[in-house]
């Protein structure tokens, strides 16, 4: 539970921290260059003198629509892995449909081990812009794979932290008093315009043990990865990499009982596809 609190705190605190840093970088004389609150004497941007917009405004919108939705699906990972105690396939996909402020978001990840589904989930979110670089998201998650299926309500934030770290932090509430949290971070390091190293980290934690899904309380699993991709085009990029799966707390104990490894280093190869 302590770990869960840490993760939750992190997601609450991070945007604030980001703002703080932005504040800090400037002298006291001026406001921050990013984010912040409008000062009391901020300019009133309405210079319409009460004149109504064109009655054909909607017409104009037909031809020029800045609220028009666009869609996007990134299959970030579609890979085979060969680990010390496992070999199989895994995926991670993220897509959305919407405009600059509101989006319907979709995320899924999971893996097959030795030919059978082991772990996985699918999430559906409403994403709403709350700060220049941050979206709040509210939605649902459905767990697939080993054991009984679990449904969760999801609340979180996702966005871009200073220094270009992509962050996502989500808290989950399920039936039977279950709670969970997930923190994800990744970064891109460009060796060339097409050769890109992507370090990733994901932490999953649970507030309550779920033995039927072989999950203990606390931090259940930490995934770290280093993937080096080559963008043949922006849409298709094969990659190779190495990933570590580390089980923690009660989950690790259960895995030991099941004769599984606690830490598994995996070589991965796959393709990243942007549709």
């Amino acid at each position, binding site marked *: 539970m302590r770990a869960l609190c840490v993760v939750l705190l992190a997601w609450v605190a991070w945007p604030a921290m980001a703002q703080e840093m932005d504040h800090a970088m400037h002298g006291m004389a001026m406001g921050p260059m990013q984010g912040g609150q*409008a000062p009391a004497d901020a300019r009133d941007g309405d210079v319409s003198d009460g004149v109504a917009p064109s009655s054909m405004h909607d017409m104009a919108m037909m031809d*020029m629509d800045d609220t028009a939705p666009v869609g996007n699906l990134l299959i970030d990972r579609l890979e085979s892995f060969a680990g010390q105690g496992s070999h199989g396939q895994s995926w991670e996909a993220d897509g959305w449909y919407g405009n*600059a402020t509101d989006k319907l978001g979709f995320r899924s990840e999971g893996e097959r081990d030795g030919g059978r589904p082991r772990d996985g989930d699918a999430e559906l979110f409403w994403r709403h812009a709350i700060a220049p670089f941050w979206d709040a998201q509210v939605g649902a998650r459905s767990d697939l794979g080993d054991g009984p299926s679990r449904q969760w309500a999801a609340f979180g934030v996702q966005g871009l932290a200073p220094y270009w770290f992509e962050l996502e932090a989500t808290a989950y509430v399920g039936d039977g008093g279950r709670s969970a949290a997930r923190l994800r971070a990744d970064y891109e390091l460009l060796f060339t315009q097409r050769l890109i190293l992507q370090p990733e980290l994901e932490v999953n934690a649970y507030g309550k043990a779920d033995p039927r899904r072989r999950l203990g309380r606390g931090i259940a699993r930490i995934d770290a990865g280093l993937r080096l991709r080559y963008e043949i085009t922006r849409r298709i990029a094969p990659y190779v990499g190495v990933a570590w799966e580390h089980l923690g707390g009660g989950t690790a104990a259960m895995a030991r009982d099941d004769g599984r490894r606690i830490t598994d280093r995996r070589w991965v190869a796959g393709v990243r596809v942007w549709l």
Partner: protein
Amino acid sequence: MRDSLLHPSRRRFVQGLGVAGIGLGLGVVRPAFATASMERPADQGKDAVLELREASVDFTGRMRRAVTANGGVPGPTLRWREGDDVVLRVTNHLDVTSSIHWHGLVVPATQDGVPGLSFDGIPARGAFTYRFPVRQSGTYWYHAHSRFQEQSGLYGAIVIEPRGGERERCDRDYVLLLSDWTDEDPARVYAKLRSRPDVYNYGQPTVGDLLRDARDHGLGEALAMRRMWNRMRMNPTDLADVSGATYTYLVNGSTPAGNWTGLFRPGERVRLRLVNGSSNTLFDLRIPGLRLRVIAADGQPVEPVEVDELRLSAAETYDVIVTPIDDRAYTVFAQSIDRSGYARATLAPRAGMSAPVPALDARPRLGMRDMMGSMSGGGEMVMAHHARTEYGPSVDMRVDMPRTNLDDPGVGLRDRSHRVLTYADLRTPGGAVDAREPGRTIELHLTGNMERFAWSFDGVPYAAARPIHFRQGERLRLRLVNDTMMNHPIHLHGMWSDLESPDGSFQVRKHTVNVQPAQQVSYAVTADNPGRWAFHCHMLFHMEAGMFREVVVS
């Protein structure tokens, strides 16, 4: 072009095909071998007929659909005389609504061609007749104002002869219309930008750049240079949203390999009417070996000034005179602001001649002044007044102390050893037509969020914005502050923009005013043309993403 070594196919985009093809297939895509060499549509006069049609074009070796006027990309050049009453019969053979806007022409609001403001648009398979008196002269252009049809090829030049004949005696007179073409569906380009705004940027800072900077400036300095940008989540190479990665740059519809050529006899004075008819590109143009005598900007005469290079922001026009003395070819070289590609043409004594094509410059990086304005030192200190609406998710940064000097040629041109035109060099002879002091000032901030590819004025996109009201007859000042790190060529329809020098005195009359990153620019407007007008950034994808307002004169 290290990229092209790895990807030979990219050369096709950069250079294009030797012969651009166009076929009026009426919906039938022709095989590539059947494409004829592009024939330029005949010039149109004061009784003009424009037929808008989809047609197959081939700029890169692939057949693509374009929106054409009279079968051409660009469409026909319209040649009028000051004082003409023009009638333009436009027939829309497309399946969608279309429109044509006469960029820089002061016409009645109903004839301005903006769907939703001026009129209902030209319906699919319908027609519209534009009628207006021509009360000005110079070089202008026209383009679609519907969705992405401009990017799809619907644009052309307008040349208006002054009532008393041309003031500058010239032996030759050529239009050089620069544009950008993509084989992709422009709606797809837009969708890609919305989901990954750096998708066309193949010049981003890499680990190698960091090592090079560390070698040249020391590791500490190199890291410090990176730190601020990275902390702010800003990219110093974010110069163009759409690059040569998808664009082929054209001169009069010819690719660089196609090499549009204008002929001269040595010693002749050649007038070049430069039009940036691109959708999303700023060009830096020079003709190695020739001085450019700038005689007009945005169609309006300026006190002549000789330069070696000039930047054409989207929708700007410049008239220059060159006097080639030698019996040899000269290359007209116009590289995109991000140096990802170039448009090329040739001036030559005889057809078939060519001159060396300069190498593209190294990609420039935005400097501190592009982020911090006058805070980075130099220039007069002014404070910007941010709007309440600029503190939301749609604005990723604000500049508190913009720079106001106009003598900065802009990123990528600052270290030239030759003379580059700046706005400070442009002066309209005889001063402002309306000598009144502006009675009030409207401040507007050019804002955006690059990560979301959202653009706006004062943080409010068009969909959510109220109009800007000008009281009819008043003389007022627009003060534009660019809070973003990109250039925004701002165009006010229906009225002139009288650009002011930093001290507030009249400088030059323009229809499109480029505002550099972290810069403040002011211009006076006489609100003498009643009606509803468009006011927007002329980067097509910025406009589509919300950097657009309605101006009402009443």
